[in-house]
């Protein structure tokens, strides 16, 4: 579903190609991304990126709001979506077995993969077994999550992304920065440059007179990809949904490139996260309403492709389904965090997140950016052993906008706070300024006598400051400017009111609550 890439990211005004590729050709990865505050600082310095992101997310936000408002029973749909997913997760073992049985009966081969390495090995082995050195890919977050393209490359097999935005990212030796619109950070003149420079190396070159007109760019991609669809023997996909009852896998998209991959090659390998299940065919009813409106702001997505095993003489004659765990059962075991497994990857939370809007997706240093990434990544990877991962639950002001738009009602702020407590607990015993401050505050606020004493000290300081500080905020109150470390993190950009000489508590006791 990335048609928006061609709409939103290419309509933006030209910007200098400052967003450099994150890694050298071939294996762009998030490895080595610094912790969120540092990565965010770098992104914030790119004013054009901020303008572009604000425009792009603002556009999708508006479209989503308009089409969601059309649905009278939207809240009931959300509740239904959440309830269906919860029920599926509660009986996941049953539904997974049911899916396996139905798929096998339909002629598919089902594989189980505990982690990324296992899943990659399965896919590589199948591709190798067919003596191919290339596969075509349908946009799939699960395969990005396991680093499948890199694993295939190590085995001498080239994976061609066929989703337009993923193609832009791949040809640009770049990293995706949005779940739905991976190239949201690129503008159309950059896309033109990438196409002109890179398409020839990967296959059919772009026409030399290529303009940065979105229609021309799309036409160049179409010509380039058509050649690959017709040549490829093996395709790799993910799935948006897997229906346990019927053994049906579904991919929803905007461009139709996915359908080309799903129908033309002889062999189809689908990597499916075990949380993608829904029990029955009828359950799709709810999600096929929730997903397109939440993600692209469309009433219905243009292409919904479904397949189940093998149909002789039509479509892929060998179908493999890799059921991927890769940390998902760990998430399932977390009573508060398991709701994240309801996620249907719509990216509505990214588009409303004020943090994402300003820092962009790369700052999160993970396959899943934005609010959902800030909870999903730490849970899939575990907290307490990687500073970058541990910084993600704090990459939010807890404003709650994400929860409000989530079509399956994931209470992201709740999970963020829960994960913060896990991060803190994992680091207990190690000295930290923050830990010391929190302990001191806990001690001070433990009794009102200590609180009052601290306020008295602050009041004494206030009397000194009142004589020395010249600066006044509007309204007349004296204010402090830039202060030294560690308060500089606050005061570098914000004035601070001088504490009052008398706290409320002191005033109340002195005046008997204003009565004397």
């Amino acid at each position: 579903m990335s048609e928006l890439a061609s709409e939103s990211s290419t309509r933006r005004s030209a910007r200098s190609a400052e967003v450099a590729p994150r890694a050298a050709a071939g294996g762009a990865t998030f490895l080595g991304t610094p912790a969120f505050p540092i990565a965010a600082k770098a992104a914030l310095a790119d004013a054009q990126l901020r303008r572009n992101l604000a425009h792009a997310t603002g556009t999708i936000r508006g479209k989503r709001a308009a089409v969601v408002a059309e649905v009278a029973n939207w809240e009931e749909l959300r509740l239904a979506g959440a309830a269906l997913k919860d029920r599926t997760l509660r009986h996941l073992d049953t539904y997974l077995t049911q899916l396996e049985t139905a798929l096998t009966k339909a002629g598919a081969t089902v594989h189980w993969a505990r982690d990324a390495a296992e899943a990659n090995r399965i896919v590589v082995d199948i591709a190798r077994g067919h003596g191919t050195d290339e596969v075509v890919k349908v946009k799939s977050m699960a395969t990005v999550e396991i680093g499948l393209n890199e694993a295939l490359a190590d085995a001498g097999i080239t994976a061609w992304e066929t989703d337009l935005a993923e193609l832009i990212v791949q040809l640009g030796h770049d990293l995706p920065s949005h779940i739905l619109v991976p190239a949201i950070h690129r503008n159309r003149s950059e896309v033109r440059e990438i196409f002109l420079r890179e398409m020839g190396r990967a296959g059919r070159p772009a026409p030399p007179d290529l303009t940065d007109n979105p229609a021309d760019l799309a036409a160049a991609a179409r010509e380039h990809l058509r050649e690959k669809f017709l040549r490829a023997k093996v395709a790799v996909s993910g799935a948006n949904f897997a229906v346990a009852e019927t053994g049906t896998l579904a991919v929803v998209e905007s461009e139709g490139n996915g359908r080309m991959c799903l129908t033309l090659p002889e062999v189809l390998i689908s990597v499916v996260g075990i949380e993608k299940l829904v029990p029955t065919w009828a359950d799709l009813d709810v999600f096929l309403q929730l997903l397109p409106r939440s993600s692209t702001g469309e009433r219905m997505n243009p292409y919904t492709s479904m397949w189940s095993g093998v149909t002789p003489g039509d479509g892929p004659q060998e179908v493999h389904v890799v059921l991927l765990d890769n940390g998902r059962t760990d998430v399932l075991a977390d009573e508060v965090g398991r709701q994240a497994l309801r996620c249907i990857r719509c990216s509505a939370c990214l588009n409303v997140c004020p943090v994402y809007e300003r820092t962009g997706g790369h700052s999160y240093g993970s396959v899943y950016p934005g609010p959902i990434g800030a909870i999903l990544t730490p849970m899939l990877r575990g907290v307490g052993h990687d500073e970058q991962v541990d910084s993600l639950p704090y990459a939010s002001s807890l404003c709650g906008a994400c929860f409000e738009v989530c079509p399956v009602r994931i209470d992201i702020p709740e999970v963020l706070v829960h994960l913060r407590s896990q991060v803190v607990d994992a680091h207990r015993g190690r000295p930290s300024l923050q830990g010391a401050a929190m302990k001191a505050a806990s001690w001070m606020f433990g009794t009102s006598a200590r609180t009052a004493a601290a306020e008295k000290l602050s009041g004494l300081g206030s009397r000194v400051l009142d004589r020395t500080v010249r600066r006044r905020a509007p309204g007349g109150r004296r204010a402090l400017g830039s202060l030294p470390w560690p308060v500089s993190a606050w005061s570098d950009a914000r004035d601070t009111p001088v504490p009052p000489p008398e706290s409320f508590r002191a005033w109340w006791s002195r005046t008997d609550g204003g009565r004397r």
Partner: protein
Amino acid sequence: MTVGLLVTCINDALFPDTGRAVVTLLRRLGVDVDFPAAQTCCGQPMVNTGYLDEAVPLLRNHLEAFAGYEAVVVPSGSCAGSVRHQHRLVAQRCGDPGLVRAVEQAPPAYELTEYLVDVLGVVDVGAYFPHRVTYHPTCHSLRMLRVGDRPRRLLEAVRGLRLVELPAADECCGFGGTFAVKNADTSVAMGSDKARHVRETQAEVLVAGDNSCLMHIGGILSRERSGVRVMHLAEVLASTEAVIDEPAQPTAGSAAASAEASRTDGPPRAPRPAGAIR
């Protein structure tokens, strides 16, 4: 019965005027308000930063301080949200069933505007504030407590007050507690956008129901020498004319609100006091 004022630690130490305004306002409306002196902090800073164990003594202290009151009134959306939604979390975490029960039996906590509109049934509080004002709905009021248009209705009923629309009002200002220092650059980027929107309104005063957000936005506005003053909603609602010698006529905007207020069963409204409040 008496309501307990949870003045919040930030108001207590940094913005005592807000607490005084709440006392003035509630007394004017005939409410018996008390400040339980044993109170300290609701524990939100610890909970939101992940220090749940450190919040436990604060929770115990809070429950003890407010036991026996009819209701708790809080001039902060985020602290009211913390009491209502996070205290149970803290109690459950420390595994003390007695503490969980105590949280369940604690008096209900109301954000100030909820208490005024829902419990007292008042929209026109008899305030007079002749200034051009814009209002920032803080995230926890808006999305955690769902106070909706209560603050706006209260402001619209203030005589002399001209309420101007804040662009992108429901977008977070970027304060977010420790987020403001842990992710200072992102926080300031968000706050600067908020400050720009405030300046665009050409309002004299930015009003909100949370002093923490106002400290952040106000700190940026002050650094920018914008001349915009920030004020807590309670202080605006507590303001009156120096002398009022005739019964107040409801303004056009507040007529419906006053009619609604008169339908509810709140306590009778106290007569407007003569004389300046502050």
